[in-house]
Each structure stands twice: as structure tokens, then as C-alpha cells.
């Protein structure tokens, strides 16, 4: 999934489940896309052939799998005691939605680095993935634009 779609999905999840998402927009943006920064190492390694490569499970580090979710959930659990309660919920939702979307739409290696076995849910076949992603991004972007306009007016 592209980072814009990760952000938009997290934004609307926060808006509906917690509310007042616009106040947390910076946090939602940072924590909904930060997991994808682990692709940087892969991009640098494959820089000669990167145009023909996909950003599938092979481009992810352990922090993009269940191992990362475990670490982040432990850190957020501790933060619940020290940081603004709602802010931790916003950050947690941004992170968890990223894991959920990546797990639902593509191949992943849930137990990496303990196992290299990859799994696929077959909910969205590969050939439909790109068009679905583009349409969903455009639709959510339009809704996002109108929701911002209503906030300004």
C-alpha cells in the first residue's frame, strides 16, 4: 500500500473511532507511515533494479511484522501511564491499521525473523491490487478534502 493510503485509512479510523482527527493529523501522518521507512534499506540495496522491483514482504524488516507489532504494543502500553491517554490511542490506531492493511492486501512473513514462511490471505488478487489501491486512494483523498473544507468553513 502507498503511504498516502495508509495515512488516509488511519485518519478516517481515528475520526470515526476516537473523533477530532484533524487535531492529531501530524501524529496520524507520522505514525501511519513510519513503518514504511524500513523500505529505505531495501531501496539502497537494490537501487540499480528498483524500477522493476515490488515493495512486497522481501522489502520489509522484522519491525514490519508481528515482531514489530509486539514491540510497539509493549512501548505503547507503557506510554499509556505517562502520556496523554487519547494521543496514545491515536498513535496505536495509526500503527495497528498499517499492520492490518498490509496483512490483508499482500504477502507477509508474520513470524520473520523466526520463520521466512510467507502467507497470503487471497482477499485481493495481485492483478486487482494496483487498481483497487488507486481508486481507494482517490476516493478517500476526495472525502478527506471535503472533510477539511467543512472544518475550515
Amino acid at each position: 500500500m502507498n503511504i498516502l493510503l495508509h495515512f488516509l485509512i488511519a485518519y478516517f479510523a481515528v475520526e470515526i473511532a476516537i473523533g477530532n482527527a484533524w487535531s492529531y493529523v501530524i501524529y496520524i501522518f507520522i505514525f501511519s507511515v513510519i513503518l514504511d521507512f524500513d523500505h529505505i534499506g531495501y531501496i539502497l540495496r537494490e537501487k540499480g533494479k528498483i524500477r522493476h522491483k515490488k515493495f512486497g514482504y522481501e522489502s520489509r524488516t522484522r519491525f514490519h511484522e508481528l515482531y514489530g507489532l509486539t514491540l510497539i504494543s509493549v512501548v505503547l502500553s507503557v506510554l499509556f501511564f505517562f502520556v496523554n491517554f487519547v494521543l496514545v490511542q491515536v498513535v496505536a490506531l495509526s500503527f495497528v491499521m498499517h499492520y492490518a492493511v498490509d496483512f490483508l492486501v499482500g504477502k507477509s512473513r508474520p513470524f520473520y525473523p523466526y520463520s521466512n514462511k510467507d502467507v497470503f490471505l487471497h482477499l485481493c488478487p495481485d492483478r486487482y491490487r494496483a487498481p483497487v489501491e488507486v481508486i481507494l486512494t482517490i476516493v478517500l483523498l476526495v472525502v478527506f478534502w471535503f472533510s477539511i473544507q467543512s472544518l475550515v468553513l
Partner: protein
Amino acid sequence: MVQHSKLGIVDKTRKGTDKGLLALPLPKINPNIVSGMSIFTSIAFLLSFQFSKPLAFVFIVLTLLLDWLDGLIARKHNLSSEEGYMVDVTADRISEGIMFILFPIWFILFAINNMLTMISFTKNRHIILPLRHIFLVYFIIIFLLV
């Protein structure tokens, strides 16, 4: 193939219930799809919680039903595999993560369950807590009865 030993009582209960349940006309669909659907119902629970508690309750029950159904379909049609186990466990953890975001104490239990999941996988022992089942009881008492 990873062999995960469960508590004896869980095994006995499963064997007992499977006798009748496996006779049901369950469709031969990919159990991974059913596991994935349980993530969608968890998201639906999260999104509906602020607006309607009874609707949120329906989504918890649906999530648990789907979680139970994926294993049943896999056993009925001999589709059990290591991939299925991984998908099931991962879908369960993501589902818990989504459902418990609004409940900090439960989110802490989710973090513990994540650690138990990693330990279970590396030590080859099934020591994962059925948190959503316990949460269902909590939800009924706190939000529906009180």
C-alpha cells in the same frame, strides 16, 4: 509443520464438539479468507462502538464466530497447514489490537498476548490467552447489562 500442544481440556472439548460440527455443510473456501474477514469485523466493532453498543456487540460475536469457523473449515476439508496457523494467529493478534485500542487495560493484555505469541512460536508451545472471548464477557457485563 509446527506442532502446538494445547491444554488437555481444550483438546478434549475440541474433539467433542468437532464430532457434531464437522458434519455441518461448511463451504470449501480458503480458511485464510475467513481469518481475514475477522479483521474487518474487528474494524467494524471499533468504528461502531461510539455509536451503538448492541451493534458493537454483534461485531465482537461475528469476529469470534469467524475465528472459530476458519479452523473448523480447515479441519473439515483437510486444509490445515503451517501457513493457516500463522494466518490465524496473526489475524487474531491484529484483531485484538484493533478491538482493544479504546480500552487501555485490554491493550496492555494485548501486548502481553503478543509476547506470548512470539514465545509460543519459538518454544513450540501454545500459551496464548483467549482475550477476545474474555473481553466478550466483560463487554456484556459493563456495556450491555450495567
